[in-house]
């Protein structure tokens, strides 16, 4: 693992036999290169990574190229199909769908990434604390079980409905909803990470290098940050990909149920929800946001699959 990664080549003595060995000696590389080599062999994962990068570019760099304002209303061009002026058509007010897809994607992906980060932070914190400190284990794991037994979707809907207005008053219409949705998704999806991290930490605690570190008097804080956390990176990274997928889907589902972002503030879920009212006149309008959500989630899931294989040292190198 990481503690062996930065070992450097020893200076070679001038004896001929060792000199030959020195010439064939490849410089040791970072283990992440091995992970990347294994990751590259997984076609789906590579394709997923490519598509995810493409989506990020489309969403964040796209508006610099396609400079149309997503809120610009051109009522004469309403409900138009795809054309050169509007490659993805327009909505019932004549707003350009492609510009709205870019703006919506920014929100959807931002929600996905922040909610995932929050869930990972909580999950890793709970998992490491529960695994490392035996006194906290019982309490923290019972809490995790309780969260797992909660009816999450109804509770998400209820909290968002009930706390929407006060947060809007405090953080502004978009900021309030963003904070609320990210917070709620993060708080309701950390449990799997916590369980996996706890199991890993429990196993690591019995290893010799931890014993060695403890015997030279390493304090708990440095023990966790220096020895345990780098070694639980693999499961955390896999849960990160699953977390992005989960957060994007949950946000879209909330918007689809009409309890997400306001309609003048597009997200992919909101665009899909608004398009369902125009199914008979303009059926292709649901395709764009739906495809964007589905393909992004699919690509992220494939990245997760590839990462899981690549980070598993038993599979790597075969």
């Amino acid at each position, binding site marked *: 693992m990481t503690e062996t990664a930065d070992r450097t080549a020893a200076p070679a003595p001038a004896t001929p036999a060792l000199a030959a060995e020195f010439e064939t000696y490849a410089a040791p590389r970072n283990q992440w290169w091995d992970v990347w080599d294994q990751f590259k062999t997984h076609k789906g994962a590579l394709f997923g990574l490519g598509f995810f990068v493409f989506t990020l570019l489309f969403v964040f760099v796209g508006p610099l190229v396609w400079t149309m304002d997503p809120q610009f209303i051109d009522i004469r061009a309403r409900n138009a199909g795809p054309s050169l002026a509007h490659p993805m058509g327009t909505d019932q007010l004549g707003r350009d769908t492609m510009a709205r897809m870019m703006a919506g994607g920014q929100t959807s992906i931002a929600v996905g990434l922040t909610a995932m980060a929050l869930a990972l932070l909580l999950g890793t914190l709970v998992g490491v604390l529960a695994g490392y400190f035996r006194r906290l284990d019982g309490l923290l794991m019972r809490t995790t079980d309780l969260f797992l037994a909660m009816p999450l979707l109804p509770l998400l809907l209820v909290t968002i409905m009930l706390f929407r207005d006060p947060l809007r008053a405090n953080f502004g219409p978009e900021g309030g909803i963003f904070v609320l949705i990210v917070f709620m998704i993060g708080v309701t999806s950390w449990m799997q990470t916590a369980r996996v991290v706890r199991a890993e930490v429990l196993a690591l605690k019995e290893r010799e290098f931890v014993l060695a570190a403890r015997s030279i008097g390493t304090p708990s804080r440095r023990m966790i940050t220096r020895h345990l956390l780098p070694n639980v990176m693999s499961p955390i990274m896999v849960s990160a990909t699953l977390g992005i997928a989960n957060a994007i889907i949950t946000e879209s589902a909330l918007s689809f149920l009409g309890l997400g972002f306001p309609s003048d503030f597009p997200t992919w879920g909101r665009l899909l929800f608004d398009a369902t009212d125009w199914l008979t006149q303009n059926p292709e309008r*649901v395709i764009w946001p739906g495809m964007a959500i589905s393909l992004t989630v699919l690509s992220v899931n494939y990245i997760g699959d590839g990462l899981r294989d690549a980070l598993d040292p038993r599979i790597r190198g075969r």
Partner: protein
Amino acid sequence: MLTYTIRRLILAIPTLLFISFIIFLIVKLSPSDPTASLPLTIPPDVRELIRESLGVNDPVFVQYFKWLKLMVWDEPLHFIEGATGWPVAPEGPRIISYQTRSPVMDLIAQRMPQTLWVVGTSYIVGILIALPLGIISAYRQYSIFDQVGTFISMVGFSVPTFFTGVLFIVIFAVNLGWFPSVYNTTHVVTDWDSFVVQLKQIIMPVMVLGLYNASQISRYLRASMLDNLNQDYVRTARAKGLTEKIVVLVHVLKNSMIPVVTVIALNVPAVFGGAIITEQVFKVNGIGQLLIIAIQSGDVPVVQTVSFIFAVLIVLFSLIADILYGVLDPRIRYD
């Protein structure tokens, strides 16, 4: 086994109490006013009287225990009376919906059949699709069938049901006109023709949920089959001269189903949750739609009751999954 079951049942009680208290608190502590949706012409003093009659001015703990007593004692007795006709139901108040002023349990009883129909059939359809898919994928690992099957289940797992539902409506209801896009719950099956109508309207919601469930279950089944196919007992069975069919479908499948059955049981509550969205897409007036309407109109008792029922489902099915695991796998004994 019995003592384990009883212990788990007793442990489930504090869990449910805690969850019900959290549900209660979230709804109660929120700054929403139960009289907010009433007409503005109601004078403030009358409004205060309405709030008084709804019992929202009591301390939170008093309200919680009143609600809890109604929920776990009075309402089940009313249910027994309704089901059997025995006069066991107590006198006194029931949990009343703010919107309809009728008992919440009656509302749920009206809507439960639709949800059970759609969710139940879709789950069975999902399992029926997943079984052959998982078995053949694992048996012919890395074949074309496996590659295509794994890809499809990955897609089915990633595409959210609110998009597949809308896509199905666009294709089959709008473009082809084969099926209706709205599920008509007042439709009664009396003869063959009305049965065909029922079949046509149920097929889309069931397929949307069913494909989603199938993709999840088949992934588990494939992985579990692959674990078992390399075991020694499979070689022994083949060496005994058993036909391939018996080896795979009896010996391997039986052992592979152990984790899959528990996954099926664990996923039941999640399927009910997912049905909230599917019901919204196809306008099925089931329990999920009841919840959405109640949330939108601030109908606190309905929201609390439906969320509590979901919590009971989750706790119940995770208990069932654990017990099934012990029953199916003789190596696991909870003592």
